[in-house]
């Protein structure tokens, strides 16, 4: 189904629920991994994913179609993930920077992390990157999105994204070699 058609159905009160089911099937996996790469812990990703879809369901009538639907959803997911992490930091009485280290320190004991030493190091290296580079690296490297898709989602030029990714990879390589 074309995106425009899906949006029309979602904004039609009589067809909204049916369309929401389609939307959920289409985007749950992609959005989950997008969120998981932010928050790292499965349970947290689950919470955020549910909140994102609830927000989409409740606010779909406000979607004007000025951007792509999945771009809009990715933005909601990114914002929700950042808000979630900030709240978590506040609860633990630590800074928004410290929360990243806290999560990574606990990642090894997470039952849903089966990474080896190099994968853990990679996560630590990603956490050291500026936020935009983290986002671009995760989307390109783990989610395997094309630059063109990323350009639509992040509303950034393909050239800028390539540059971001290139810098991110270089920094990660340096980190992995030195640690």
């Amino acid at each position, binding site marked *: 189904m074309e995106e425009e058609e899906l949006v029309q159905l979602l904004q039609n009160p009589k067809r909204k629920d049916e369309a929401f089911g389609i939307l959920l099937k289409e985007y749950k996996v992609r959005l989950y991994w997008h969120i998981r790469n932010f928050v790292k812990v499965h349970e947290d990703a689950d919470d955020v994913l549910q909140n994102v879809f609830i927000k989409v369901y409740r606010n779909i009538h406000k979607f004007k179609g000025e951007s792509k639907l999945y771009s809009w959803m990715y933005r909601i997911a990114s914002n929700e993930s950042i808000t979630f992490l900030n709240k978590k930091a506040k609860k633990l009485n630590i800074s928004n920077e410290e929360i990243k280290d806290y999560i990574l320190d606990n990642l090894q004991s997470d039952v849903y992390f089966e990474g080896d030493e190099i994968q853990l190091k990679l996560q630590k290296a990603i956490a050291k990157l500026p936020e935009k580079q983290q986002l671009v690296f995760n989307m390109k*490297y783990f989610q395997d999105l094309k630059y063109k898709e990323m350009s639509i989602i992040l509303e950034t030029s393909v050239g800028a994204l390539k540059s971001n990714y290139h810098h991110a990879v270089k920094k990660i390589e340096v980190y992995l070699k030195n640690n």
Partner: protein
Amino acid sequence: MEFKDKINKNQTGFITPKAYFEGFESRLFQKLSEQNTTPNSILPETSGLEIPEAYFNTVEKAIFERTINQKKTKVVSLWYYKIAKVAAILLLIITGYGILQTTYKTNQQTDRFSTVSEEDLEIYIENNILPYSEMRNLFMEEGEFEIADNAINELDNEVILRYLDNELDDLDLLDE
């Protein structure tokens, strides 16, 4: 083809898996494209982040419960919330109005009080407010008078004078 296979088989004894060469091209291209997208072999290909089995089926149900199904089951309670909301707003308006009225009246009374002259107040106190002893009597029971009178009568005059001598700084006050 048969000839080559025969030669290989006979000469070296090595054999290939069945249909190995048929899928070779596609496997080779896949590997090449993977190598092109993988920036450097130092980086692991996966993140190591896992998910529980069948998670994406359960999350779908959970989201339905919190969106579509929640809406359906709470239809009855919605009108109740609407009424409660209206009632709460009305209560706030009434309470607010009451507070405003009371404040207004108090202000009016305060204003009236501030316009009364000092002289009028003195006249009012003289004519209307009972002396302290009489006011105190209003709140004392009949029996209490007797107890108080008896207690004073039982005291020795000398004791009273000694008490007054010690406790009062200015004995001239007694003469007033």
